[in-house]
């Protein structure tokens, strides 16, 4: 039986990908960002996931304003890194566990989560930067160490799905994965955030107290945290901070009680507070 062993929360700042792709991660500006992922890279190399269910948002790459699905599940065999306006990232093509993805799609709809199913899709930095920070530099001619099932969540056009909806979706994703007969070690990633605002006159907003509260409650009071209204994210964590709703999908898929095995927080990476957490299920 497939099982979910751990969850990873992490920011997906595009400039982090650029720093890795241009080999400047040792510069004083970037060094503290990457230092916080040293533990994580060892951890994931030891834990060896077979599949990562990766929750992220597309930044108007696969979806422009003409089509805005709230939840879009990647069911294609593979996903190519997209040109986001400065050329595609030099990272491997992302390969899917297509049978598991199809199973999850079917299970979720019958579980009353009405997914959009993507049989062709390019992926942007929202998906590839979390893989890069967790696995390190991987040449485009090599392969990522595991298979990836992408779930793209709309957070560009207001309203994003509520925290509660995301949390409940996480529970449904877990039911789907645990009803798949193959013996698989599955991890779930929630990405985006933390506090940041990219636009207009309040750009540059960072709120470390909010971010710390979010990380604390993610472990200790996930249900309470999932009830937070959108306006609190927008006001307290910046207009783009609302991306953090995606972390609730990850949390919902884990046990009620989890072990926090790692946390990293750093300001700034470009315009953004970088946050990262690793949560393990207790009975694995």
């Amino acid at each position, binding site marked *: 039986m497939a099982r979910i062993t751990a969850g990873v929360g992490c920011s997906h700042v595009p400039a982090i990908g650029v720093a890795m792709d241009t080999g400047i991660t040792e510069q004083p500006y970037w060094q503290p960002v990457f230092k916080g992922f040293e533990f994580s890279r060892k951890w994931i190399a030891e834990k060896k996931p077979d599949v990562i269910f990766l929750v992220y948002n597309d930044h*108007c790459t696969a979806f422009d304003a003409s089509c805005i699905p709230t939840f879009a599940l990647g069911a294609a065999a593979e996903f190519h890194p997209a040109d986001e*306006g400065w050329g595609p990232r030099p990272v491997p093509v992302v390969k899917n566990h297509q049978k598991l993805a199809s199973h999850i799609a079917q299970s979720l709809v019958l579980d009353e989560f009405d997914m959009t199913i993507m049989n062709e899709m390019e992926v942007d930095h929202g998906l590839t930067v979390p893989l890069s920070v967790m696995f390190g530099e991987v040449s485009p001619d090599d392969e990522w160490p595991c298979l990836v099932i992408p779930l793209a969540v709309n957070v560009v056009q207001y309203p994003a799905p509520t925290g509660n909806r995301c949390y409940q979706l996480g529970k449904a994703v877990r039911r789907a994965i645990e009803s798949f007969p193959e013996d698989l070690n599955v991890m779930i990633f929630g990405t985006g955030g933390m506090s940041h605002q990219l*636009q*207009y*006159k*309040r750009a540059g907003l960072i709120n470390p107290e909010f971010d710390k509260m979010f990380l604390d409650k993610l472990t200790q009071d996930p249900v309470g945290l999932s009830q937070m209204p959108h306006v609190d994210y927008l006001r307290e964590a910046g*207009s783009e901070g609302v991306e953090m709703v995606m972390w609730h999908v990850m949390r919902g898929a884990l046990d009620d009680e989890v072990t926090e095995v790692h946390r990293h927080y750093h300001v700034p990476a470009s315009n953004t507070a970088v946050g990262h957490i690793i949560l393990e299920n207790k009975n694995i």
Partner: protein
Amino acid sequence: MTDKDYEDIPGTFVFDADRSREGYYLNQFCISLRLQKNRDVFNAGEEAYLDKYPMTPEQRSAVLARDWNLLLELGGNIYYTSKLAANDGINFQNLAGLMTGMGVDKYREMMLNGGRSIEGNRYKSEWENK
């Protein structure tokens, strides 16, 4: 829709369905610049390229003037307008430097020092008293 609880956040546009409707062709123009083949055509003749997108005259002139804040006021969204900026060689951080009126260096300095504090930046009323 009159009761938008997010309208009292200062210096912020929440890109909701009303803004998305107003900015549709502007944003679709911007996102077309994601691809090199389109950037080549745009850069060879901006006016002719813009003719393909039925945006308002105000939106069109804001594009030509690269008035980054006005683009947002007219329904643009940052993930779209950033593609126009990228075409001009302006990254997200430098674009923020322009939109805040701080300039690139001062903005970068602010971020290195921990970013813009939440204190005094939660409600429009706090900015009015500045």
